[in-house]
């Protein structure tokens, strides 16, 4: 996945706390200019991995190399940290003005005053903060404060930017605007970016590579569409938004189409697996279509089932419909469709999905 020579390389990264291994990453490389997301649920070890890569943990074993130089041997941790930028979920601003906050990293590097003024103003402009330059940091809103934190990280012109869930405490519109601006700044500056998040939408929007981690271990590493459409296991499938995950046994294989027995029912899916082998079928909710019982299946979909609506969850713009078709199935439908179909709990409905909408994982 690393497109260029690695700017950062981690080998045998391991953290044990009270007999429990919280991080175990045998090998991890980040290419220069790459924008990658580390995603996983809360407690998966994303922040721990980030802190270890920033060399901010003392109690870890393994090797971190920056541009081929081993940190701690060829380059000191403090020297290495002068090449990185880090933004946390909390802005962690100092109790001083916006300008002084953005200037802080430059002052640590003893840059002369005239240059500080130029660099800070440039970064304040970048993040739309110039009118706030003299404002005390404590008086800023959450979104403004996080912008200052980002401007502070960019002011030192880092080689690698680490973002540890920087949008988690922001409301939706503020988050959207900030991601939009940040995306532009990252692309303009071509800075290598490592972004930890538990929000897959943020990861899909910002990055060109996604690393999924769980229990401190890397589970999948690939391009966003690859991780999204071809999850390597049940955990990744579930985390990437696959609502229906079914276990089955392959009955036959014909022309690349598998017939899989699930709870005594046959489901056809595109994939490869030996006959009699166990597989997991991942069906995304947006790939399932619903029709009234009275209408014969109209689509060319190979899989058509009758099911009972067991639960409906409204998610604002769409409704999430849970069905019992002899196996559980989840579909997303628009509010308008739900109205025209008269979907309510307890009714029977016809569901169909294509063989190509199913991702098959060999067990």
């Amino acid at each position, binding site marked *: 996945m690393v497109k260029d020579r690695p700017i950062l390389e981690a080998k045998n990264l391991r953290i044990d706390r009270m007999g429990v291994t919280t991080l175990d990453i045998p090998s991890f490389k980040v290419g220069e200019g790459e924008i990658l997301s580390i995603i996983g649920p809360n407690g998966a070890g994303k922040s721990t991995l980030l*802190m270890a890569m*920033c060399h*901010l943990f*003392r109690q870890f074993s393994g090797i971190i190399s920056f541009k081929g130089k081993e940190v701690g041997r060829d380059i000191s941790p*403090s020297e290495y*940290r*002068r090449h*990185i*930028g*880090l933004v*946390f979920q*909390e802005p*962690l601003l*100092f*109790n001083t003005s916006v300008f002084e906050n953005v200037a*802080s*990293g430059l002052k*640590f*590097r003893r840059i002369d005053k005239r240059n500080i003024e130029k660099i800070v103003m440039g970064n304040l402009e970048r993040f739309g903060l110039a009118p706030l330059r003299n404002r*005390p940091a*404590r008086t800023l809103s959450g979104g403004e404060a996080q912008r200052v934190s980002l401007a*502070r990280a960019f002011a*030192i012109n880092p080689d690698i930017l*680490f973002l540890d869930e920087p949008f988690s405490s922001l409301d939706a519109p503020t988050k959207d605007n900030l991601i939009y601006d940040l995306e532009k700044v990252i692309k303009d500056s071509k800075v290598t970016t490592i972004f930890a998040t538990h929000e897959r939408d943020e990861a899909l929007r910002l990055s060109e590579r996604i690393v999924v981690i769980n229990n401190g271990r890397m589970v999948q590493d690939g391009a966003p569409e690859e991780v999204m459409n071809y999850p390597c296991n049940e955990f990744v499938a579930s985390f990437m938004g696959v609502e229906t995950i079914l276990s089955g046994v392959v009955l036959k294989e014909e022309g690349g189409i598998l017939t899989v027995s699930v709870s005594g029912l046959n489901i056809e899916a595109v994939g490869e697996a030996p006959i009699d082998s166990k597989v997991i079928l991942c069906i995304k909710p947006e790939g399932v279509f619903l029709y009234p019982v009275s209408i014969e299946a109209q689509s060319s979909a190979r899989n058509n089932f009758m099911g009972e609506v067991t639960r409906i969850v409204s998610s604002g713009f769409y409704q999430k419909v849970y069905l019992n078709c002899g196996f559980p199935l989840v579909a997303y439908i628009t509010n308008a469709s739900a109205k025209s179909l008269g979907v309510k709990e307890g009714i029977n409905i016809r569901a169909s999905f294509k063989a190509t909408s199913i991702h098959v994982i060999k067990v």
Partner: protein
Amino acid sequence: MELILEGVLKAIKMLISLDREVLDITILSIKVSGIATAISVVIGVTTGTLIAINDFPGKKVALSLVNTAMGLPPVVVGLFVTIFLWRNGPFGFLGILYTPYAIIVAQAVIATPIVTGITVAAMQQLPKKLQLQILALGASRFQMAVILIKEAKLSLFAAVMAGFGGVISEIGASIMVGGNIKGYTRVLTTATVMETSKGNFDVAIALSIILFLLAYFINLILTYIQQKESGSR
């Protein structure tokens, strides 16, 4: 009641007429306790910061020792400072026992743990990730400590107030190591005790009022600065 009234009136008269002896005692008290507090702030803030930002074996033991020392009885401090400064003691060669310097030493010993303890608590109240953020901005550990002290300065004002309050009002150590020598080591507290024992309640009341006003004004100034800082947040 009459005794108190007479005492208060005499006190007011002494204050208005700026009695030379009372003035000297007051100035010496401010000097001694001010210097002792300054010393304790330098040592206490440094030690407190070092304890707070470093993980080392025995950190909890060190902290419990600091917390215990915050309540050191002044007479115990007085006893040990006397022993250390005694002619045959380890620091007897300094020859400062029964001088204002001895009082400064004793008061600094009393105030340092107070300032240290409050500094540690203030540092621990800062967000845990702040240290990581500062280091990630490229700061050295010294630069990080300076920033943390700045961030905790409101609480550190409280440390200064507590330290000064502790020493300006203590008596045991001052009398033991200073000796309450007239015109030389007599401070407000030792003078008050002496005048009371002599039955000069009016003078004792006057000295008490000065002591109270002094503590009040110093704390008023520090509180004013603290609140001004707080308002700018």
